[in-house]
């Protein structure tokens, strides 16, 4: 069994031949061409060199065939013998600049390593989704973007600026670029819906109450909560709280909007409606939207760009249309929600 037969090596050939429009014109504008481990402008190559030294490389199927993965490979992943067997780190071009970039980020909590050499790019003016099984570090990613957590090593760049190296004042200023929708909305319990949405405007702008009222009413109207402005968070349903959180996240016209599992706790219809809302508002306002989820239906509905995260590293990332056709067995299993495949219950 040769090293070239390892599962992720099957992608080496298409990556080398995949040329982005910018490359064809001789420009290398964004980090999709950058080796995430810092080797400059080298073409994208699989980055999991640890695997190259593994003694028993399993036989991978032909990437163009629908052949099932041999059971020994699946078993090897499920038993945890090599948890990064499927992590090619492949980063397909997205044709945009990067709003947020993770460069070789490591983060541990006690003995639990959550991010384990994460390299991730979030394209500007697209809806990106970070998908992955529960407990793989998706929410930890969001907290790194806004400087609520700092990496143990590595760097997080927002519009090219290093978040871990910012002073407190710079950090608070940088955070104004972000709108964040937390899982349950994170509305302030002491304020009604209207005041919750108005709060960032009152804190960060010199607008008059009339101007604030116009903006707030507009945002609340967009999310369909015009009739509930005087209600307090504990009087709202889960879906209403999320929509209110969405309105609050948008009120300062942020360039980057983060959604932490917007579909959690919602029924399928309301999830679909929320996804539609995210898409509509993104079409109107633009900016980098990042949706953290493990709901595949949501990904199919709204994602322009998808990053699959598992065990603290990117398995693969690329435009949604390409990733849903990915030959990577892990990505394929996850994006189709099948039980059979490398991802088990562990």
């Amino acid at each position, binding site marked *: 069994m040769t090293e070239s037969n390892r599962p992720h090596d099957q992608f080496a050939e298409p990556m080398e031949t995949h040329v982005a429009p910018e490359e064809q014109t001789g420009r290398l504008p964004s980090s999709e061409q950058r080796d995430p481990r810092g080797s400059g402008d080298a073409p994208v190559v699989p980055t999991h060199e640890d695997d190259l030294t593994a003694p028993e490389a399993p036989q991978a199927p032909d990437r163009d065939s629908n052949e099932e993965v041999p059971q020994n490979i699946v078993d090897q992943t499920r038993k945890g013998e090599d948890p990064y067997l499927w992590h090619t780190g492949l980063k397909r071009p997205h044709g945009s600049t990067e709003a947020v970039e993770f460069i070789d980020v490591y983060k541990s909590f006690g003995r639990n390593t959550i991010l384990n050499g994460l390299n991730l790019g979030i394209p500007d003016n697209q809806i990106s989704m970070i998908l992955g099984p529960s407990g793989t570090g998706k929410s930890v990613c969001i907290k790194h973007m806004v400087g609520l957590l700092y990496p143990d090593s590595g760097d997080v760049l927002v519009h090219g600026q290093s978040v871990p190296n910012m002073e407190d004042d710079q950090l608070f200023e940088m955070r104004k670029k972000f709108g964040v929708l937390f899982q349950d909305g*994170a509305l*302030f*319990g002491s304020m009604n819906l209207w005041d919750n949405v108005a709060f960032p405007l009152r804190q960060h702008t010199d607008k008059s109450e009339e101007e604030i009222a116009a903006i707030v009413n507009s945002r609340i109207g967009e999310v369909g909560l015009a009739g509930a402005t005087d209600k307090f968070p504990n009087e709202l349903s889960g879906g209403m709280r999320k929509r209110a959180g969405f309105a609050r996240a948008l009120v300062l016209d942020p360039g980057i909007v983060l959604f932490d599992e917007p579909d959690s706790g919602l029924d399928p219809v309301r999830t679909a409606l929320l996804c539609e809302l995210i898409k509509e508002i993104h079409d109107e306002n633009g900016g980098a939207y990042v949706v953290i989820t493990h709901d595949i239906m949501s990904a199919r509905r709204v994602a322009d760009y998808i990053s699959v995260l598992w065990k603290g590293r990117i398995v693969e990332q690329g435009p949604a249309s390409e990733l849903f056709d990915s030959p990577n067995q892990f990505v394929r299993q996850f994006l189709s929600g099948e039980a059979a495949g490398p991802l088990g219950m562990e």
Partner: protein
Amino acid sequence: MTGRTWLEVPKEWIASFGEIVKFGVRVIGEVLTGRVFGFFGEGLRQAGILILGSALVIFGLAFILGLTCGLEGAYFSRSVGAPAQAGIFSAWCDLREVIPYAWGYMLSAKVGTGIVAEIGAARITDEVDALEVMGISSMTFLCATRLFAAIVVFPFLYIIAIGFGFFASYLAVVEQIGEVSSGGFFLIFWMFQNPPDFLYSIIKAMAMALAIVVVGLYYGYTASGGPVGVGTATAKSMVLNTVLVHLIGMLGTQIFWGQDPRAPVGG
């Protein structure tokens, strides 16, 4: 060695206490440097909550304990053949010990735990993170505003609570037992206390209040582990505050009245 050595437990206590002190200094700094005035409205709202939520309970407790002090003092002074001296017991009991301790207990139970629960709940429902990502210092908005409210409101509440205690003692000694006239009671009552005693009592009570609020803020702000974590933090704050109330009470009595009773008792 597999187990923990006996020294590790006290070491952890000291480390935790150091963390609380460091946190407290930071929050006090937010108030003293005036950053809290960026959220003056929130500070006033917290002051309103303290007044509406705690004042009646504190006054009620002070009144009941004042009655008790009056009664016990009246019967004790009768037992030694000096019923006219009942005011001594009322003066000392109310001003120096019982009202400050009652104040400390009530603040620990009502205000301290309330702060832990409120801020802890905000922490586990991501409200603290939501503030931070909006570019607003959660430390200032959640903690400094509450400390500011306590500094504004507590001295007045305490002074009024002392008034309730005094009035209750007067009712018990003069109106209920009735073995001393109103003038006789007040003659002795005021002879055994003076303005510095009043100031010392306020200092003692405010030291308790500051400790209780800082401990509550610390345990609330650092709460983790979901609702169970908030419950655990609330219980821990109550235990520590109870200990601190007694330590401060004992130290206050020793410092202010330990060397000099500040009363005409001779010797």
